[in-house]
Every structure is written in structure tokens, then in C-alpha cells.
């Protein structure tokens, strides 16, 4: 196990990445929806209120038919994911809650849980969504 001084570095890194990520994610969702899948890995999975959507093509189709949105995030938390789970691939867990108004629908509260992995190239580090789990708080099943 890494010494705790290293762990603090991971925690700081996770917080910085998570804060930047949610700003970009929800702004892209609300204002530039067509770009949204660029934030997802090629083989990413979204579980949206129990519906599973995998891969770029299916994600594109899904986001295209989703009504336009206005998200407000009120809570954000994040953790570095343990290296034993990720085979050394730097990964963070990011969770949010807030409210969303989809066009033609009433405002609802939601929770969203992401796993983000760092794609490191010699030039830079790009965080991509490996998995995304979204639920309205008022589950209507």
C-alpha cells in the first residue's frame, strides 16, 4: 500500500480532476450535447435509470433522443480508485447529485456515479468516462 503522503497526492489529483470534469460534463450535456460522447471511452457503458447503453454509436443515439436539459449540481464527491481494482490504470470515482429539468418534463432530482480513467500520452493526460450510472431520485418503475 502506498504511504499516506502519496495517498494525499492521489486525493488532491482526484479532486482537481473531478471538479474540472463536472463543469465540462454538465455544460457539454446542456449546451453542446453532440460533443458529449467524446468524454466517454470507446467501450464505455451508461446505465440510465436501468437502461444499459454501451459504445460510442449507441451513446450518440441515446443522447440525441434525450430532451434538452438544464442540470444543476449541488453535491460532488470523489475518491481515487484502488490500484488493485484498476491494474495500475489511474482511475477516480466521481459522484454528483442535483436537479435536472428536461425539456417538456418537470424538474427532478438525480444521482450520478462515474468512473473516470486517465488516458496518459506523452503530450498530456485526458480523463475519459469508463462507466456512468444515472438515476432519478424518485424512481418510477
Amino acid at each position, binding site marked *: 500500500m502506498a504511504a499516506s503522503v502519496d495517498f494525499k497526492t492521489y486525493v488532491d489529483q482526484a479532486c482537481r480532476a473531478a471538479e474540472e470534469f463536472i463543469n465540462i460534463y454538465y455544460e457539454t450535456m446542456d449546451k453542446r450535447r453532440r460533443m458529449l460522447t467524446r468524454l466517454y471511452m470507446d467501450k464505455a457503458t451508461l446505465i440510465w435509470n436501468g437502461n444499459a447503453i454501451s459504445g460510442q454509436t449507441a451513446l450518440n443515439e441515446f443522447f440525441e433522443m434525450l430532451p434538452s436539459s438544464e442540470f444543476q449540481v449541488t453535491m460532488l464527491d470523489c475518491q481515487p480508485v484502488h490500484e488493485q481494482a484498476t491494474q495500475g490504470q489511474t482511475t477516480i470515482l466521481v*459522484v454528483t447529485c442535483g436537479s435536472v429539468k428536461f425539456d417538456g418534463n418537470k424538474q427532478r432530482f438525480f444521482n450520478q456515479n462515474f*468512473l473516470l480513467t486517465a488516458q496518459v500520452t506523452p503530450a498530456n493526460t485526458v480523463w475519459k468516462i469508463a*462507466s456512468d450510472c444515472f438515476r432519478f*431520485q424518485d424512481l418510477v418503475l
Partner: protein
Amino acid sequence: INFDVETPTTLPPSKGSYFSSDDLKAPVLRFLQQYYTVYDSGDRQGLLEAYHDGACCSLSIPPIHGNPSRNTLGEYFKDSRNVKKLKDPTLRFKLLKHTRLNVVAFLNELPKTQHDIHSFVVDICAQTNTLLSFVVHGIFKEVDGKARDSVRAFDRMFVTVPAVNNGLCIVNDKLFVRNATTEEIRKAFVMPAPTPSSSPVPTLSA
């Protein structure tokens, strides 16, 4: 006159639990059953076996308006880690419980609970050879203290690694707690609670 600029206003219908495959459903449900049996037992020390040495855990609640001491989620307020509001890196670090002993000591301090396992909705969101991650949504009530009988809703994300006997060992645990809505309170605990058993508490994954 019509213009072809119709925009969608219909949301896809919500579905229940997503288990991704039957092979994963059984171990995840068994894990949750065992985990919450210990969690609700009154002494959460037994959860030590469910966590990895290097596990971490954090809790958050929705932002509170007004005086936190008068809020019904006040018991959770001092531990709530909302990175959107907390900008101090030292406090952010302190509120993230790290290592198995600290995680279980922290969980042991949280209010005593009874979970309604019939309310659980589970989404398996990621799986690889080394990782299984799922989110549990559900209802619990507090069974002692000043908020006794308060009904809460929770969302909890677990990241686990494989353990012996097809078990799961928790490396990341993220708990979100809020007050239940009137509708959730009405529907909660309608199924009879499992009969208390004198058999020993089932051992968890490790």
C-alpha cells in the same frame, strides 16, 4: 405552416435493477445481503472482513440550507464531504476515510440502522477481471438516537475486487444519504422484516 425542428420531450422509461448478467447477479445480491446483515446488527465491527486494507470511504448529504443543527440530517453533517462546497484540501483529505480500520471505525459511529432490502435497486456499472462496481439505491430507517424511526434514502457506490470463494472485497465505498420522500416512506418496510436468527452472523467476503 410546419417546420421540421421538433425536439424530443419524451424520456426513456425507467427500469429496475440492472445486473448485466445472471453470473454477476447472484454474488452481488449475496454480498449485499451479508453486508447489510452485519451493517444493521448494531455492531459494524464485523465489516472489517469486507474491506481491503487500503479501502476508502466517504459520505455526503445534500447541501443544507440554514442551521445544520436544526436539520434532520444533522447526524451526518459533520462527516459530509461535498467537494463542491469544501475548498480546503486538508478538510477534503480528512473527510475521506482511508484504510480498513478507519473506514469501519467511521461506519460504526454512524446512526444504527435497519435497511429495507426489498427496496433495493442495484445497477452493476462496471466489471473487469479485477474490478466489479455497482450502485445500490434503497431505503433505511434509524433505530435509535434522536432521529429514531426517521426514514432515509441512500445511494451507495461500491468498487470491489475479487476475494476468495467468489466473494467481493470493497476497495471504494461512497455513501450518499438524504431524507426519504413521502412516497418513499409510504412504500418502505411493507414487506415483513427477516426473522432475527440465532445463527452466527454470516462471514463476509475476505
